[in-house]
């Protein structure tokens, strides 16, 4: 029963949502939206589970003085501080309807001054990682990597004024060799064809996986065997 009941729910909800795509009549046309609301409700309760788990894991690490336990103190202090400041709306309009992100509230101050800065720092790492990953990917070790390198070079140059200057002198008959034109051609023809092929595969994969879930062929996500 532990697996059967979720399977029955999955089947009924899955079929209802498929029907809702083709039937615009009540009650089907509102189902997608309404089931999303149910999902949000469940997710809100699950969030308590997540917060509890975070405290438990890091609490254990601190109490057992496990490896790198000091980092866990930072995590727990950060989590509790934001939770208390937000829950009690310190510095902001009080009451249930008070806006937790109102100007002057401690929550907003901490969010803008600490959280956003940290987030931006992590995101900025991306620029460096793009450079290092590109360096590895574009090393012309194989035929495929060489092609990738040439394509990337043309696109990079074609997107800058340098591309215009380099081949801007070409006569009209050879305009297709103008680097910005080559760059656009690579993006809109071979690149687009490849992307569409991937998208078709993804769409088929999603349909197949969804059917497996609805028909109960795939059930490992329920803690059951896929048989």
């Amino acid at each position, binding site marked *: 029963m532990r697996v059967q009941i979720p399977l029955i729910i999955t089947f009924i909800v899955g079929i209802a949502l498929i029907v809702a795509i083709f039937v615009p009549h*009540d009650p089907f046309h509102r189902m997608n939206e309404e089931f999303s609301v149910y999902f949000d409700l469940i*997710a809100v309760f699950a969030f308590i589970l997540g917060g509890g788990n975070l405290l438990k894991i890091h609490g254990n690490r601190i109490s057992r003085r496990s490896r790198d336990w000091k980092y866990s103190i930072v995590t727990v202090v950060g989590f509790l501080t934001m939770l208390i400041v937000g829950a009690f709306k310190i510095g902001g309009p009080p009451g249930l309807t008070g806006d937790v992100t109102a100007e002057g509230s401690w929550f907003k101050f901490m969010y803008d001054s600490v959280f956003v800065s940290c987030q931006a720092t992590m995101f900025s*790492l991306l620029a460096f990682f793009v450079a290092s990953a590109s360096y590895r990917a574009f090393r012309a070790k194989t035929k495929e990597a060489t092609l990738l390198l040439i394509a990337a070079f043309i696109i990079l140059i074609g997107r800058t004024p340098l591309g215009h200057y380099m081949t801007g002198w070409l006569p009209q008959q050879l305009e297709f060799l103008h680097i910005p034109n080559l760059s656009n051609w690579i993006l809109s023809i071979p690149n687009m064809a490849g992307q569409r092929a991937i998208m078709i595969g993804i769409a088929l994969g999603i349909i*197949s996986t969804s059917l497996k879930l609805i028909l109960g062929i795939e059930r490992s996500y329920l803690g059951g065997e*896929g048989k």
Partner: protein
Amino acid sequence: MAPPDRDCRHFSKPALLLSLVLFLSPVLLLCTGNLPEAGAQETTLTIPAIVHPELATPTNVEAFDSPSDQGGSITITWEESTDDVPGTTLVKGYVILRSESPTGDFEEISSVPPHAEEYLDTSVRNNTDYYYKVGVVGAEQTFLSQTVGPAVAKQQWFNSRKVNLLFIALILTFAIILYVFQAKAGKKLYIRRISGIEAVDEAVGRATEMGKPILFIPGIQDMDNVQTVAGLTILASVGKLTAQYETKLEVPVSRSLVMSTGRETLKQAYLSVGRPDLYSDDMVHYVTDEQFGYVAAVDGIMVREKPATCFYMGAFFAESLILAETGNSVGAIQIAGTAMPTQLPFFVAACDYTLIGEELFAASAYLSGDEKMIGSLKGQDVGKAIAMFFILVGAVLATAASLSGNEALTGASDWLRNLFTLNF
């Protein structure tokens, strides 16, 4: 010839007398209080009137329930006024008037620019009669069409614009179910090798030999994303291997529901290979919902624990490259799989193996070796074969039509395009 002299001596006496009277008459009238008002004076002037021609009203006006919708909408169509000629400004636009009674007061509900021939009225109630008039707007006047109606908005039981989608879905469903049954009946089905999936065994073995943990990231989306579900089904297979090899597995997640589901999945995987003793709830732990907070935490785990193997299976966004590059920097063997086309290049560049798009969804079937799951993969292949066939036919038709200019070929090409145009 001398120029005409302006001297008054050349005017005749009667003319001078008339000028004097004309000049003095306002003064005299002002003194007697009999000066006429400006408006009254205007009426005495003869100004040629601007004639605004009568405009031809819109013809063939129709109002009907918008098809294939959930109600609440009436479509009004008409043929434009014959005076609505491109390049002229006689027609300023059209107005749509509505009433709930053919003889009642018609209220203007909207206006549309010149040359428009359709309006969708989405401010109506279902199962109520509505009457419409369409007016052509001139410079000063609006000329109204005949009243049409009643039109009643109703909910439809089938969206006929999605017939093609239904047809495609039915073919795919039929193919998948057919192959599942064939596989169940014992028919041997061939599926091609996917190097990324075959490398899973090797990757888990490597971690076991090195005595280092394995890190599994099931994406950063929740359980309502099918990629996360696909990621967790792969986690089940990886979990069985780590249970057999007694290798440490760590699954940091960014959603609470994924944590709960991941735990159930892993618990069952360990149980199925007879090693429930090795399972612990702490293997799947929640970090944060915040994208870059999650990245910081996972990067920290990588740098501190230096896992031998990293799996990235699910939906990823900008964090994909940060995670994969950090994993690369600690020397981990990395296998990624995602159906996010924008993140695939990053994984391809930074990981050892990448499951591209559909391979992510095929992986769980491939790894499980279950005949029903493999049957579903064959059904998926039928869909791909159909897609390839129609792409090829469409490309040949469109090219031939473009080169020859043949109407039949152009028509066939357009028909095929419309056949596969999905209306959502």
